């Protein structure tokens, strides 16, 4: 999570207008959805990689990111390719395999274009985009709050896990469970103080106020 977030605000495109980046990445996404074909996949993946590379994001990170959905896609398309015909006899034909392949291609290509967008666009810009798209303001406010709180909770999580590790705790599920409970209770304890901060600053309405650079227009 932190890796993606840091990559986004350290990328060369971090200050570029989010609408311009969306105008490049989202058409690629829709293209791969509509044109479900290996050739389209190839084209989109190459384009997306170039965009990511141009944006100064490590290609290794990008490839590593793409490998994860690749595994999920394979697991997901198996039931499409094969179907049960009677008890314990598996059946597949040309059409169903064809469908599995196109689905896998479409999924991979659209993941590639979505990740290209995520890796070059800090989340704050996505919030701004939502505002431009006239999404309801309450929704945007909550999203902005959740974004900030996620990182605070994540910091806490890292600290609790570290504290347990240092005292010979064994890494694993129990440690995570203990951390979850502690984060929850300690956050509840802080609620009062946070509400005070909100009162002091006059409310919790999110008002977007950032300015961006452009790919083509020179800065004034």
């Amino acid at each position, binding site marked *: 999570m932190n890796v993606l*977030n840091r990559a986004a605000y350290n990328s060369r495109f971090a200050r570029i207008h989010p609408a311009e980046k969306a105008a490049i990445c989202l058409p690629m996404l829709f293209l791969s959805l509509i044109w479900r074909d290996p050739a389209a996949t190839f084209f989109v993946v190459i384009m997306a990689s170039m965009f990511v590379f141009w944006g100064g994001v490590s290609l290794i990170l990008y490839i590593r990111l793409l490998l994860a959905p690749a595994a999920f896609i394979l697991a997901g398309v198996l039931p499409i390719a094969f179907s049960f015909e009677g008890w314990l006899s598996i059946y597949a034909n040309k059409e169903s395999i064809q469908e599995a392949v196109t689905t896998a291609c479409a999924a991979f290509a659209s993941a590639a274009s979505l990740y290209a967008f995520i890796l070059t666009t800090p989340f704050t810009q996505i919030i701004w985009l939502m505002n431009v798209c006239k999404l309801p303001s309450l929704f945007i406010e909550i999203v*902005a709050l959740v*974004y*900030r709180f996620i990182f*605070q909770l994540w910091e806490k999580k890292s600290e609790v896990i570290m504290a347990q590790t240092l005292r010979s705790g064994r890494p694993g599920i129990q440690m995570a469970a203990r951390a979850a409970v502690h984060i929850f209770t300690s956050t509840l304890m802080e609620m009062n103080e946070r509400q005070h*901060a909100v009162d002091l600053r006059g409310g*919790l*309405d999110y*008002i977007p106020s*950032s300015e961006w650079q452009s790919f083509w227009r020179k800065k004034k």
Partner: protein
Amino acid sequence: MIELKSICSVYPDGTEALKQINTTIKSGVKIAVLGESGSGKSTLFHHLTGLMQPTAGAISWDGKELTYKRKHLQKWRRRIGFVMQNPDMQLFAPTIEEDVMYGPLQLGWTKESARIAATEAMKACGIDHLRHKPPHALSAGEKKRAAIAGVAAMNPDVFVLDEPEAGLDPANVQKLVALINTFHQRGKTVIASTHHVDFAYEWADEYMILNEGSLVKHDRPSVVFSEPLPSALDIPWAFEIGRLCGETPLTKKDALCILRQTMTKM
């Protein structure tokens, strides 16, 4: 001028957090609030900023008593800015710039004037270069200054800072002292609590000493440190050295310089 008239504060569980606080805060002064943990410093600040309502007593500004009605509270907090101890509680916008602009925008300023105010505040606090970063990417000292900038952008008359130097390194403490003095020069009142009396001595005009919920003293340093203090409090090094040498140095550098001169003269 803020007046506290026999403020008492009792918690629901019966502990008396503040006992009969009577004092006046003149405008344009720099006040350091000293006292051990649990002596009521934070509670006092909560009352000053209207976050808590006193069990008895009243607080007033230029003779006008705070009524704790929403409108009045809003106006009050517009004039008193409070920087909490943990900046994480206070920074809630996705980027620093948006966070600093947050207060002015909530007050209904236009985006343009909010941006101008925010830019000026960020420059004063030395975090202008971090404006596009998210708060979680900042160091502790930077977060602290971002929180101060967020308050400064609203241009309040009084700054209330809760242990601002806790966890800062000496270089950042110096920046903080400079910032306090900048606010002072612009005619602002600054009230800050701290555990480090040497830090306070570098900038404070007046001292408030709290002990177990009572305001033991509120006076100039020459008076406060000449009399016996509650056991847990120290006398500043610079004050002691100044007294021995017959001068009034404020910073470490000056104090040691004077000491050296005095020693060689003799």
